[in-house]
Each structure stands twice: as structure tokens, then as C-alpha cells.
């Protein structure tokens, strides 16, 4: 292919220039095409959901027992989502960081096995994760629970946290790593008081992206936390979550009230998810800027 450079790069003819222009136009069109759904989804949910969110009752009342009845809010789902995701974060972050540090500091066969498993997990459909937790926790306990839901969300978050933490820790500038060594710091001390603080914003970004992924998950919760029409804080009870509430109400979208509830909850969920996501990205962007100015 490279042998006939002369024929490939003859003086820029009108035809080749036209091809190049067509290429630019196509690429721009593809970008716009991809953004249409983003804008359409956000606009549609916003227009239909904003009036629900404007009333405080939507946040502090529970939904009516009958989906088709009017009034009520999504308090049970909002609290359930926050409680289960919070617990999942508390489980996933220490384990994820430990596996990342283990892979870097210790290495060897065990580290490779763990990392392989994390890679497998990263590509696993979240519904399969739900089945794992169902067969090993829900069946064993004999009932659905918020705890089972948290475990499923923790497993969904784990690969995101681990992969990003490992990547960031590997990027620790060599002179700093050597400096820590030269100061005679023990390895654990170097990790905890040098490497982790340096990579902190990147690690936090990974955690926030993991949280934003877990918060929007529906599939693993169907078999684990199940959903609950009533408000509960007890993690041993079935627990409602915003995605579950949207799913169940959307399937009854023949009722205008159910549809409106789904829209309001969807807008609330999007705001929460985008919030975590954008704050995470902003942290990384700020870090890049700080790094490049050095």
C-alpha cells in the first residue's frame, strides 16, 4: 500500500478534496446523530418530570398502594437507593482499593487471579451479578432484602473502583516513588501516606463513576432487593429503589399517574447520576490541568 505513494498522493485533485470534505461532514453528522438521543431523552424526561419534582411532597411522601391512584411521592425509593448505594460503596471501596494495591505492591499468581476475576466481572452483565447474589444470599437467607441489593450493587461497583485505582497508582511519578524509598519509608507507609494521597483525585473519580453506575442499575435489584411499596430503613426487608420504581411504573404506563411518577423519578435519578458523574470527571480534568501547568 505504501509502495505507490505517488499514486495515492497525487496533487490534491478536486475529487480528493471533495472526498475529504465529505468525510468531515459524515463525521460531524455521526456525532450529531449520537447526541440526538441524549438531548431527546433528557429533554423528554425533563419536560414530563419537572412538575413532579417541583413539589416537595414528591420527595417526602411514599407512593400510593395502588399505582393508578394520584398523589404520593417516591420517598421510599429515594431513601432505598441512597441507603443501598451507600452501603455498597462502603463494601466496594475498601475491597477495590485493597485488590488494586495488592496487585501493584505484592503481585504474583494471586494478584493475577484476582485481577483476571475483576476483568471478567467488569464485562459481566449486571443481571448475572443479580443471579449470583440471588442464589448465594437470597436463597440462603430465605427472603429478599436491601442487604442483598447492596451486595449486588457492590459487585457492580467493584471493577470500576479497582481498575481506576490500579491505573492511577501505577502512574505515581517515579521520582516520588524513589523519594519515598530513599527516605526509608516502609512500603505500607509509602502507599498510605504518599501514593494514595498523590492519586487521591483519580481514585475518588473512579469511586464516583462506580457510584454513578451502581445508582442507575435496575437488573441486579430485581432478584435481590425486589422492591417495596412501603418505606423502610431496615436492610433485612425488601427495599425499593428509584430504578425499580421507574421500571414498575413504566410497565403500567397506561395509567397517567403511574407514568408521571416514572417521569419524576427518572428526572431525579438522572440528576443524581449526572451529578456524581460530572463531579468525578471534573476532579480528573482539574488534575490534568494542574499536571500540565507544572
Amino acid at each position, binding site marked *: 500500500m505504501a509502495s505507490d505513494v505517488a499514486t495515492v498522493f497525487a496533487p490534491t485533485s478536486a475529487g480528493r478534496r471533495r472526498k475529504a470534505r465529505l468525510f468531515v461532514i459524515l463525521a460531524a453528522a455521526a456525532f450529531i446523530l449520537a*447526541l440526538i438521543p441524549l438531548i431527546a431523552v433528557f429533554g423528554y424526561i425533563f419536560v414530563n418530570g419537572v412538575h413532579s419534582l417541583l413539589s416537595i411532597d414528591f420527595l417526602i411522601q411514599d407512593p400510593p398502594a395502588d399505582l393508578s391512584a394520584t398523589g404520593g411521592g417516591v420517598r421510599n425509593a429515594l431513601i432505598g437507593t441512597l441507603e443501598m448505594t451507600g452501603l455498597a460503596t462502603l463494601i466496594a471501596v475498601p475491597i477495590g482499593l485493597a485488590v488494586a494495591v495488592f496487585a501493584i505492591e505484592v503481585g504474583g499468581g494471586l494478584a493475577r487471579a484476582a485481577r483476571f476475576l475483576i476483568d471478567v466481572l467488569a464485562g*459481566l452483565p449486571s443481571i448475572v451479578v443479580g443471579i449470583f447474589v440471588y*442464589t448465594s444470599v437470597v436463597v440462603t437467607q430465605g427472603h429478599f432484602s436491601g442487604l442483598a441489593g447492596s451486595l449486588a450493587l457492590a*459487585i457492580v461497583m467493584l471493577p470500576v473502583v479497582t481498575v481506576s485505582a490500579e491505573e492511577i497508582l501505577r502512574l505515581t511519578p517515579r521520582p516520588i516513588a524513589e523519594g519515598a524509598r530513599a527516605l526509608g519509608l*516502609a512500603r505500607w507507609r509509602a502507599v498510605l501516606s504518599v501514593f494514595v494521597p498523590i492519586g487521591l483525585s483519580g481514585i475518588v473519580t473512579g469511586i464516583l463513576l462506580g457510584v454513578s453506575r451502581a445508582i442507575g442499575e435496575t*437488573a441486579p435489584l430485581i432478584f435481590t432487593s425486589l422492591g417495596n411499596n412501603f418505606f423502610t430503613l431496615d436492610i433485612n426487608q425488601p427495599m425499593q429503589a428509584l*430504578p425499580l420504581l421507574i421500571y414498575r411504573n413504566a410497565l403500567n404506563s397506561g395509567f397517567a399517574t403511574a407514568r408521571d411518577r416514572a417521569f419524576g423519578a427518572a428526572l431525579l435519578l438522572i440528576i443524581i447520576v*449526572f451529578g456524581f458523574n460530572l463531579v468525578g*470527571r471534573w476532579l480528573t*480534568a482539574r488534575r490534568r490541568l494542574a499536571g500540565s501547568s507544572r
Partner: protein
Amino acid sequence: MTESAGLPEPNALGLGGLRRRRWTGDLTFRAVLSVLTVAITAILGVMMVESFISASPVYQKFGIIGFVTGGTWAPSFTVYGAWAFIYGTLLTSLLALVIAVPVSVLIALLLTELAPARLRAPLGIAVDLLAAVPSVVYGLWGLLVLVPAMRPLEQGIAGTLGRVIPFFGPPTPGSSYFAAGVILAVMIVPIVSAVTREVFASTPRLQREAVLALGGTRWDVARTVTLPIGRAGLLAAVVLGLGRAMGETIAVTMVIGNSDNIGKSIFSPGFTLASVIANEFNEATETLHPEALIALGTVLLVMSVLVNGAAIAIRNRFTGGSRSGF
């Protein structure tokens, strides 16, 4: 940084003592890390095995081959075969790839070669945000907006092409394999374009500049440098997108129409592996029905491990094993 004040006097502590203290510290540190890593590896391993054990009655009754290739799914007669759902999973995922891959490649080229440098990061974030929208929200939009909006298009194709090829023929009720494929395409564009973008960005700068210096256009750069060099990475991105599409659950469940039978047309309702599990699980009361759904989950597990394993292998062979973007 007030730590230095707390450091012991050098002569208050023999070198041997320092060494021993560091040694026990590192030993504890390693022990904690090892215990956590072993524990999570064991727990995840046990969970995987547990799901196969739960599914084993179904595999014993129908045989692994019999279950996977069985064309009938009739819970009320205790007959379970997975083929209709495997077909649905493959059909919708491939459809999604056909739509999403060209769009993703063009976006990746735009964001690595064509767009002004200062616009690249914000435009990239916009594409990434597509991946942040929860599946259930896509499903809600798909169900109430996309499916009705696509009806004229579907009727058009079914009325013309469908007269000749039954695969594109009626019925056109709205919710269908086609609708699921379109929603999946929207959902995998961010992952495919993100990985592709990274691959394209790592093509040697000198070669690109050489083509420009020879008087080549941007299209010549893409055609002679970026695409040929990035081919393997692009393949990895496509396979990764396939893995994502196969496992997507809720959005697909809401637009695929939910039918236990194989639809002959791309416009007929069906099920994917993931969506039949999500849809039937909470009402699975017939004999072996829950076990059969778990067995479908194990089929999906094996399929996605194979596909993602292939993606990782391709990437490691050709791009030297950078993990980012995955």
C-alpha cells in the same frame, strides 16, 4: 505534614529496631491486603459455582446441548429450551453493532483528528454522558417515544423490502427485535467510540504528519494511517461493544415485546436471554421455572466471558495491554 516532628531520634532507635518495626508493619499490611484479595476472589468464585449448581436440575433434565438448542419454552408443560432467547440476544446485539460501529468510528475520528483541539475534551464528555444515562431511563424513553416514532419507518421497510424477504416482513406492532437493536446501538456508542478513540489517538504522530506533509487530506490520513494501524484495536472495541449489548437488560425488556417464540421477522416481538430472566423471574412459580431462568443466566455468563475474553486477548496482543477505557 507535621509527621517529621514525630520521627524518633535516630540514635534512640537502633537500625535493627527500625528494620524490625518496618518488617512487622509491612507484614501486617500484606496480610490485610492478602486476606481481602483472597476473600473477594473466593466469594466471587463460589457465587459463580453456586449459580451453576442452582441451574443443574435443568441441565440434568434436558442435557446441556438439549437445553441450549431447545426451541420450545413452555413453563406450564415443564419444557425449557434456550434457543429462542440466544437467537434474540445475538440478533439484537448484531443489529446494534451494525448501527453503532460506523457511527462510533466516525465519532472517534472526529474527536482525534478533525475537531479543533480545544473542543475535543468537551465533545468527548458529551458522548461519554450517553453511557451515564441509566438503562431504565432509556427504556422509558424507548417505550413511550422511540417505538411509536419508528413505526412509520418499520411499516415502510416491511411494506417494500419485506414483501421479498420475510426477515424484514410484517408484523410491525412496535415493540420488536428491531426496536431493541436501535436502543442497544444508542447505549453502546459511548463504549465503542471511547475505546476506538483511545486506539486512534495512539497511532504514531509522525506517520500522520508525514501523510499531511505529502499533501494528503485528512481523509488520506484516516485511510492510510489511522484505520489500518488501529484495525486490531477497533476489532477489540467492536467485540467489547458486543459484550455490552448482549448483557443489557432493562431497556431491552421494555421495548422488545416479550414473546417466548422466535419471531421470523426482525419486526416481531421476542426476548433476549437477559430480558426473559428479568421479565419472568418474579412470576416464576411453575416447576423448574426459576432454575431454568438461572440456567439462562449461566448461558449468558458463559457467552459474555467468551466475548469479553476475546476482546481482552485481542487488545493485549495488539496494543500492549493498556487497560484504560475498559
